[in-house]
C-alpha cells in the first residue's frame, strides 16, 4: 500500500499543502515582510479585506467581467467551431484566423483594445479574445472525432439534418467542448486580472496595482490566493455539473 502511512487518501493533498505553508513560513523568516509576508500576515490581510467589504466590492467587478467575456466566447466559439468542423470552405477560410488569434500575444490585445474600445470594456474584450480560440479549436476537434458509422445510420433512417446536429454531433462534441470550456475558464481569471491591472480603476487587477504601488505585498498575496481559489472553485463546479449530466455514457 503506497499511501499506508496516511490515514485516508483525502488527507494526502492537505499534507502537501501543510508542507508548503510550513516552507513558506520558514522562508518568510529570512526576508522582510515587504518581500515575502508570512502566511499569518497574508491570512490577516485577507480577513481584513473581507470584513471591510473591499473584497466583495472589488472582486464582483472582476467576476462579472470574466463571466461576461467567457460566456460571449462560448456563445460565439461553439457555432464557429461547428461551422469550421463541418464545412471545408469555412475551414480553409477561418482556421488560419483562429490560429492567428490564438498566437497573438495578450499584451497586444490589451494595448489595442485600450486604443480601440475605451478602457472600461478592455477586460471583457481581453477575456473574450483569449478564450474564444480554446473553445473553437476544441469544438473542431470534437467534430473531427464524430463516429461516421452513426452518421450513416442516421442517413439510412432519414433523420433530418437539424436533428443529426443536435442528437449525433452535439453529444459527441460535448466532451471536447467541455475540455475547451475548462481550459477557457482557467484562462479567464488570469486574463481578467491582467487586463484590469492596466486598464481600469476597479477590480482585482486594479486592486493589485494599487497594492503594488503601496508595497502592500501581503495584499498582493491575498488577491493571488483569491484568484487561485476562484479558478479551483469554478473548475470543480464545472466538473461536478458535467459529471452529473454525462455519467451514463462516458
Amino acid at each position, binding site marked *: 500500500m503506497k499511501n499506508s502511512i496516511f490515514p485516508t487518501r483525502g488527507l494526502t493533498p492537505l499534507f502537501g499543502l501543510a508542507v508548503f505553508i510550513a516552507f513558506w513560513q520558514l522562508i518568510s523568516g529570512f526576508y522582510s515582510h515587504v518581500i515575502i509576508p508570512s502566511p499569518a500576515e497574508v491570512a490577516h490581510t485577507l480577513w481584513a479585506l473581507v470584513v471591510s467589504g473591499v473584497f466583495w466590492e472589488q472582486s464582483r467587478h472582476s467576476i462579472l467581467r470574466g463571466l461576461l467575456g467567457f460566456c460571449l466566447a462560448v456563445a460565439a466559439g461553439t457555432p464557429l467551431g461547428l461551422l469550421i468542423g463541418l464545412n471545408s470552405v469555412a475551414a480553409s477560410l477561418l482556421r488560419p484566423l483562429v490560429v492567428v488569434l490564438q498566437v497573438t500575444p495578450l499584451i497586444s490585445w490589451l494595448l489595442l483594445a485600450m486604443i480601440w474600445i475605451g478602457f472600461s470594456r478592455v477586460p471583457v474584450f481581453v477575456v473574450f479574445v483569449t478564450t474564444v480560440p480554446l473553445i473553437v479549436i476544441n469544438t473542431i476537434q470534437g467534430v473531427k472525432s464524430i463516429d461516421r458509422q452513426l452518421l450513416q445510420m442516421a442517413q*439510412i*433512417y*432519414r433523420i433530418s439534418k437539424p436533428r443529426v446536429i443536435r442528437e449525433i454531433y452535439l453529444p459527441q462534441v460535448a466532451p471536447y467542448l467541455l475540455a475547451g470550456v475548462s481550459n477557457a475558464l482557467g484562462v479567464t481569471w488570469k486574463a481578467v486580472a491582467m487586463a484590469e491591472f492596466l486598464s481600469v480603476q476597479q477590480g482585482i487587477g486594479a486592486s493589485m496595482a494599487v497594492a503594488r504601488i503601496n508595497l502592500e505585498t501581503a495584499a498582493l498575496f491575498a488577491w493571488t490566493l483569491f484568484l487561485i481559489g476562484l479558478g479551483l472553485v469554478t473548475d470543480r463546479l464545472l466538473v461536478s455539473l458535467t459529471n452529473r449530466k454525462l455519467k451514463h455514457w462516458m
Partner: protein
Amino acid sequence: MTAVIRFENVHKTLGQTRVLEGFSLQAKKGEILCLVGPSGCGKTTILQLLAGLEQPDAGRITGTKGLKVSYVFQEPRLLLWKTVAGNMDFVLRDSVSPARRQELIAKYLRLMGLYEYRDNYPKALSGGMMQRLALCRALAFPHDLLLLDEPFKSLDMPLRLGLVRQLAQMWRGNPSTMVFVTHDLMEALLLGHRVLVLSARPAAILDTVDLDLPFEQRNISREPLPSHYGRMLSLLEAESMKFLPNL
C-alpha cells in the same frame, strides 16, 4: 414502384480492391433473399449499394429508388447517450405519431426480450443485447426493404436460431423485401426464399437455392435442407481453396 430490385452488370471498386465485376442479381418484392459467401467477397458492398450508401462505378441498379430502407449493420451503431427506448424513438420520431411510437417501441422491445431494459443506457447491455436492440430499431422503422448484415454474428447458437424463427414470424406479419447477409448456412436455409452462394472476390453467383417450404416446416435435419447444406458447404470449401491452396 417497381416490383423487382435488379443489379445489372454492376462494377464497384473500393480503394484498390475490385469488389464487384459485372455482378447481376434480382430480388422480388416481398421475398427473403439470403447471401452467403466467404468473408470479404463483397456481401456488405452489395447491401451498401442497395441502401444507396455507395454508388456503382458502372452498371445499373434499379427498383431501389424511393424505397424506405431499414439496415441492421454488423455493428450495433447505437447512440450511447440515449436509453434503449430512446434509441428506438430516435429513428421513429420523424415518421410515426407519438402514440403509435410508444406502441411500436413496446411491441418490438418485448419481442426481443429487451422491454425491462427500456430505460437503461446501451453501456449497461451485453454485446448480444445491443445487436438485438439494433434489430428492434430496424424492424420498428417503417420500411419497404430490410437489409441485414450478419445481424446475429455475436450471438450464441440457440438465441440465434430463436431470432431467425422470430424474424420469419415478423416477416409474415409484414412481408417486406429482405436481403440477409450471413456466413451461417443454417440461418440462410431456415430463413431464405432464395439463397445465393457467392464466390470469392470479385463476387459471382455460384449457386441459387430456391426454397418454397413454409418456415415452420423447415428443419435442419430434414430434407431438403441437409442436401442443400452439404452442397453449399462443398462449394464454399472449394472457394476457400483458392486462397489456401496448400491445405
